[in-house]
C-alpha cells in the first residue's frame, strides 16, 4: 500500500500501514525513496544494484530508525535509488536486501534531500490488527 503524506509545515510526515513489522519497514523504506527521488510506482523496474544490511538495536523504533538512516547513507554514497526491499525483522534484529538502480538526475532529480529520520517523530501503533507507522523525514 502506498504511503500517505500527513500535514507538516517544515518537514515531511508520512503514514504507512502493514500487517507485520516486516511490511512497515519495507513500506517506510519505499516511502523514503519516493520522498528522496520523487519516485512513482511505475518507475520501479529491474533493479541491478544490490546491498545487504544487517542491524541489531535495543527496540523496534531504534531498529527502524537505524534501518532508514542506513538506507539514506547507502543511497547517497553509492548513488543508488533503491526500488525494492526484502526485509526480515526478528525482535531486535534486521536483515535486509536492498535492490536499486543507479541515480539518474533526469529521472530521480525531482525529490527532496532528506537530512535525517526523526527518532521521536516515529510512532508505531496497532490498529485493528494492522501496524500503523507515522514517521517524520527532516528535509
Amino acid at each position, binding site marked *: 500500500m502506498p504511503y500517505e503524506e500527513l500535514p*507538516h509545515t517544515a518537514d515531511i510526515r508520512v503514514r504507512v500501514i502493514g500487517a507485520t513489522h516486516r511490511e512497515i519497514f519495507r513500506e517506510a523504506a519505499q516511502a523514503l525513496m519516493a520522498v528522496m527521488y520523487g519516485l512513482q510506482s511505475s518507475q520501479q523496474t529491474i533493479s541491478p544494484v544490490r546491498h545487504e544490511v544487517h542491524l541489531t538495536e535495543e527496540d523496534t523504533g531504534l531498529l527502524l530508525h537505524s534501518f532508514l538512516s542506513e538506507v539514506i547513507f547507502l543511497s547517497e*554514497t553509492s548513488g543508488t535509488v533503491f526500488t525494492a526491499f526484502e526485509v526480515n525483522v526478528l525482535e531486535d534484529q534486521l536483515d535486509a536486501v536492498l535492490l536499486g538502480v543507479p541515480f539518474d538526475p533526469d529521472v530521480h532529480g525531482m525529490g527532496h534531500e532528506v*537530512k535525517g529520520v526523526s527518532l521521536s517523530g516515529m510512532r508505531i501503533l496497532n490498529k485493528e490488527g494492522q501496524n500503523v507507522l507515522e514517521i517524520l523525514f527532516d528535509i
Partner: protein
Amino acid sequence: MQEGLVRLGSLVWEVPIGFVPGMRVPGRIYLSEALMSSLEDGAVRQLANVATMPGIVSHALAMPDIHWGYGFPIGGVAAFSMEDGVISPGGVGFDINCGVRLMGTPLVRKDLGDVRGLLEELYRAVPTGVGAKSSLRLSGQALDAMMVQGSSWAEQEGYGLPADIRRCEDAGAMAGADPAAVSQKAKQRGMPQAGTLGAGNHFLEVQEVKEVYDPAAAAAFGVREGQVCVMVHCGSRGLGHQVCTDHLLTLERAVKKYQIALSDRQLACAPLSSPEGKAYYGAMAAAANYAWANRQLIMHNTRDVLRRLYHIPHEEMPLIYDVAHNVAKMEEHEVEGHRVRLCVHRKGATRAFGPGREEVAAEFRETGQPVIIPGSMGTSSFLLKGTAHAMAATFGSTCHGAGRLLSRTAAKKEISGREVTESLARNGIVVKAPHPGAIAEEAPAAYKSSAEVVRVVHESGISLLVARLEPIGVIKG
C-alpha cells in the same frame, strides 16, 4: 492569541513557568500580532519543553520566525551553564551550521546584461540539487584538515582570499573540532559534496542593494545602494546530517545513563562535561567548519564565473560576512551581573553580537557584527547589525529568515512551479532550479513575510536594519 502566553511588551511574550510541567525558566517569544496568527501550538510547546532542560540559564528564547522543528522550535535560542548544563543536537538541527554568506561586487544591475545567461553559468559552476556531486576530489587527510580549519583550509588551498577569513563568524572555524568524533560514514558522505549547494531551501541568489537604512554601518560593511551582491545559503551537507544522526543515538542512550528527565525525546542531550557531550561538540564543530569551507568553495566558484563574464578580479568581490544559524557555541555572556561562559544553542537563529565584542572582526567592532537575514525565494533579504540590547536580552541572537507558513504539499497544491516562475519573471526575477516542484515548494506564499520578521527584531532592538536587498536571479537547490 495563544492561550497561556503573557504579553510583556508590544513585541515580547512570555511562556510562563508551568506552561508544561518541569520548566526551570520561562520562555520568551519575540512576535508581532501579525505573526501571532501563524504561531503553531506545537512550536510554543517545544519552546516550553526546552525550558525544562538541565542547566538552562535565564530564558528559553524564540525569534519571530519561530516554527515547529525537531527538538527545539526553529528560531529557538537557549544557553546552558558549563557546570550543570547540557548539549543537544535537537538545539542545532540536522544541518549543522546551515548559514548564509553575502559577497559584494563592483557591479550594478545594468552591468549584468543577460541574467539568465549568468544564472546558467553559475548553475554549471555550483553543483545543485539532489544527488549533485562536487568536481573536487578530497583525500581523507584533506577532509580532516577542512573539518579543523574551516574557511582557512579552503583559502590556503587557493579557494579564497586571506581577507575572507576574518569576515566569517568565528573566522570560519570553531575551536574544538574533533574529526575523530566524526564517523567514517559522515566522512564518506562529506567527501564528494564539498562545494555543493544541496537542495530544499538552500540557494544562491544574485541580489541588488535596494535601500540603505543605516549609511554609516553600510559603509563599514562595504555595502552601497545599487550594488550587486551574491548571497549563498547552505550548510554542512551529508556530513553534518550524518553527524546529527550518529550522535542522536549516542545521546539518546546518554539520557538514560545520566538519568536526565526530558519532556520530549527529541531533546536528547548529555551533560556538557560528559564524554558523550564532548564527543558531540567535537563532531558538531567539525561539521560546522566543513560548512564554512563549503560556503567558501561556493563563493570561490561564483567569483570565477563573475571574473570570466565581467572581467572583475576576485579582490574586487569582497566577502561582506558569513553567519551560522544552526549551531551550539561556547560564549561569554553577562548573567545577573556576572560574566559567565555558556553553551549557546541557536537553532534557526543568528548570532547578533553588538559593538565591542572581541569575537567580531576589528572593522565591525564599532558597528556591531553584520547579520544576514535571507528572504524566501523572490522576496527581500536584509542586512542588519548586532546590538548591545541583543547581548543583554537574547544572548546576542536574532532571527534567521522568513520561517515556513505552508507545508510543501500545500504550497504545491496552491501554485505550480511554472506560475511562480512566471510571476517572479514579471517582477524581473529569473529563477533556475533542478525541477519546477522545487520552485513551487519554495514559493513566496509558503513563507512568512521576511519584512515582518525583520521589523520585529529591529523594533525590539535585538538587531538593527542596515540595508535591504532584492533578488535579481535565484538558483534554487
